[in-house]
């Protein structure tokens, strides 16, 4: 057993309203630059839908993630190492810009400079890549809220698989349609296929917190990671010629702050915490023969920080005490292991993803209530889960490689919690049977309710700082401004010769405004 710590996220899909605040704030923070116009480290897609890039889940086409060889060993789906090196000249599995979308802006200038005339001036779309007028044909969220209708949605790879392999038709008629939102970031997998694909060894998993990063200095632009990631969450910056990806906002994490997407989530549906896992068991778990066993196999990889043996091993393996403490209080661990509510996204890719999802339950209550039954009665609810408007099979294809049982169990627990808490709120004697039926205690249901419904900030995010071990060093940072060097700008000095403030509003990204960076000063 070798203990490692991993920062992980859980998203409660019941609460996502698809407002895209996470996407926008993430973009403003990380990919608001030339070369990354089309890049969304965080995106929110509507399911059913094709996602971003379009149909990224179709691994027959994109060949991301891992597969098992005939001898049961893990191999990248893109082929053996030699085979992929042979494709350095042209990568057949690389999505093109069109598969994402051609980013655009508008010719706003004509709105103010158009000559006086009978018609109102129109701001026409302009390609952000070529600068030429363009017609907008797709976007990062083109089928938002089922936009585009049945012909668009039938191309959802999950819908297609349900239809072809299980014969389950997903209904798209307006009265029977269903949808929910799926926010996605990098999964920061335990067995990352992007890292394994990188020929330069520029991508790595951080030992301390498991965050997967691209070393911008060592990346040589072989773009194998882009096709290696089955979630298509590594992007190619066409300006710098380097790969970029979600960083799990590591500069914020290191000082104990949640990611920007989590911090700004208006639904408060994201949870961040530490998971301890046994790194020695990862490969074996990822090689589980039956895809449906991958979810339980990944659960087996996680370690219980309350187990004294694990705590001792963690200390031996150099996991700081603060991190073990954080793992004990981890909301993510509660949702994944204790309540078994959260499920991984596409475990069949065999990457052991670490951003998990609580499946959505909401529509069932409404649907039941509309038929005249008590929508929050346990018995009714349990029965209704079987005939959910969101088919359990669809959720199972997303979260458990097609095994509906874990999804049903998760939804039952959510239903039990609702029913239980309604009794509490109405002052009735809560039905203890609901809890025991789903294998939880009443206290656990209350704790679950607190975590999911109240979702206090400090309970959602339990993040040990990377700097705890270096607190003494960090003092120097915290107690004085880094600009306060002798004669530095913080001392009121600065480069007065460089002139006044920088007008960032009209800043042309091709240039560097004077005074943005301090020049070299004679020492």
């Amino acid at each position, binding site marked *: 057993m*070798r203990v*490692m710590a991993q920062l992980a996220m859980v998203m409660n899909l019941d609460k996502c309203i698809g407002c895209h605040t996470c996407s926008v704030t993430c973009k403003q923070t990380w990919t608001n630059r030339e070369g990354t116009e089309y890049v969304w480290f965080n995106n929110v897609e509507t399911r059913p839908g094709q996602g971003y890039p379009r149909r990224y889940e179709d691994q027959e086409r994109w060949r991301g993630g891992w597969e098992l060889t005939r001898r049961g060993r893990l191999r*990248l789906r893109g082929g053996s*190492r030699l085979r992929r*090196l042979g494709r*350095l*000249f*042209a990568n*057949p599995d*690389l*999505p*093109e*810009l069109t598969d994402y979308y051609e980013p655009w802006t508008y010719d706003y200038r004509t709105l103010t400079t158009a000559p006086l005339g009978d018609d109102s001036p129109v701001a026409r779309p302009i*390609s952000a*890549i*070529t600068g*030429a007028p363009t017609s907008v044909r797709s976007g990062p969220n083109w089928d938002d809220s089922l936009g585009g209708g049945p012909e668009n949605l039938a191309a959802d790879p999950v819908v297609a698989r349900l239809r072809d392999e299980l014969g389950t038709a997903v209904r798209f008629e307006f009265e029977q349609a269903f949808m929910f939102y799926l926010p996605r970031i990098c999964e920061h997998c335990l067995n*990352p296929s992007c*890292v*394994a694909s*990188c*020929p*330069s*060894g520029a*991508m*790595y*998993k*951080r*030992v*301390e917190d498991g965050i997967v990063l691209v*070393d911008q*200095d*060592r*990346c*040589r*632009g*072989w*773009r194998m990671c*882009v096709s290696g990631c089955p979630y298509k969450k590594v992007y*190619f910056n*066409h300006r*710098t*010629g*380097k790969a970029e990806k979600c960083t799990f906002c590591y500069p914020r994490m*290191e000082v104990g702050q949640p990611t920007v997407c989590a911090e700004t989530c208006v639904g408060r549906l994201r949870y961040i915490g530490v998971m301890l896992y046994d*790194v020695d068991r990862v490969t074996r778990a990822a090689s589980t023969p039956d895809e449906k066993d991958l979810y339980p196999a990944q659960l087996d990889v996680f370690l219980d920080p309350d187990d004294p043996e694990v705590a001792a091993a963690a*200390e031996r*393996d*150099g*996991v*700081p005490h603060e991190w073990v403490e954080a793992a004990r209080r981890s909301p993510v661990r509660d949702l994944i292991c204790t309540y078994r509510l959260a499920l991984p996204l596409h475990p069949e890719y065999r990457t052991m993803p670490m951003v998990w999802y609580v499946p959505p339950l909401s529509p069932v209550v409404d649907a039941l209530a509309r038929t005249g039954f008590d929508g929050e009665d346990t018995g009714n609810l349990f029965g209704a889960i079987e005939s959910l408007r969101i088919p359990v099979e669809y959720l199972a294809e997303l979260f458990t490689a097609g095994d509906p049982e874990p999804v049903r169990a998760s939804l039952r627990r959510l239903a039990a919690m609702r029913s239980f808490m309604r009794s509490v709120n109405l002052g009735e004697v809560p039905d203890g049977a609901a809890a025991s039926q789903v294998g939880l205690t009443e206290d656990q249901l209350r704790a679950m309710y607190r975590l999911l419904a109240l979702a206090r900030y400090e309970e959602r995010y339990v993040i040990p700082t*990377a*700097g705890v*071990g*270096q607190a*003494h*060093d*960090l003092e*120097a*940072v915290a107690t004085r401004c880094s600009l306060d060097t002798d004669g530095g700008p913080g001392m009121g000095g600065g480069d007065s010769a460089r002139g006044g403030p920088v007008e960032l509003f009209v800043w042309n990204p091709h240039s560097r405004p004077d005074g943005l960076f301090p020049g070299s000063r004679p020492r």
Partner: protein
Amino acid sequence: MTTVDVVLWTVLPYVALTVFVVGHVWRWRVDQFGWTTRTTQVLESRWLRLGSPLFHIGILMAIAGHAMGLLVPKTWTEAVGVSEHTYHVMALAGGVAAAVLVVVGLVLLLLRRVVNGRVRRTTNRMDKALYLVLTAVITFGVVGTVGRNLLGGGYDYRETIAVWFRGVFWFHPRPELMVDVPLVFQLHALSALVLFAMWPFTRLVHVWSVPLAYLCRPYVVYRRRRPRTARLGAAAVSAPAAGVSGGRGHRPPRGPSFR
């Protein structure tokens, strides 16, 4: 032999090779971030998927052919019993095949770069200069091979160019050998020297990053977080570097080395 000949065939090679070597050292040390293929496949894939492999395989064949023709003395091949005629036929067959691949690939890639607006926009000045010189080198080379050796009477460059080329590396330059070489071969050599001098400042540096180490590396790379103190400058108390900065570890390191 005039001064111009000495400048062209002695001074220029050494200047070009010096720039080549020093330029690479400089670029490697100051510009790791710029050291990349700058592939444009994400912008345009269809033409590249045909053109790029053709060009690269052709170029690799051409490089192998040059290595054989320039670095292996004629006496050696004759010693193992390869007659001039046999060698000529072999070199010509390989050379023409490489030329076809390279030319078709280059034309496809050049057209793509001009016609496709996305790719055109990412082309910077250095790329344009590189394409110009590269096209010149390839054109002169192909004209020399096809025009002179296939259709023309043939020219035994192993008696002159190859000897001159090796002399440069032995610090025993023999510029007089190049004086009477046919113009097209002279131009090929000169444009190649310019290409060598440009090399470190262009995207051609990706050639040196051929990731062969990938074949024998563990799949998943683990690395330690760099200690913050390294970036804080002298003001911060320096942390003992050992075990913390670990750097390029390829396996999860064992033992207590967290701070």
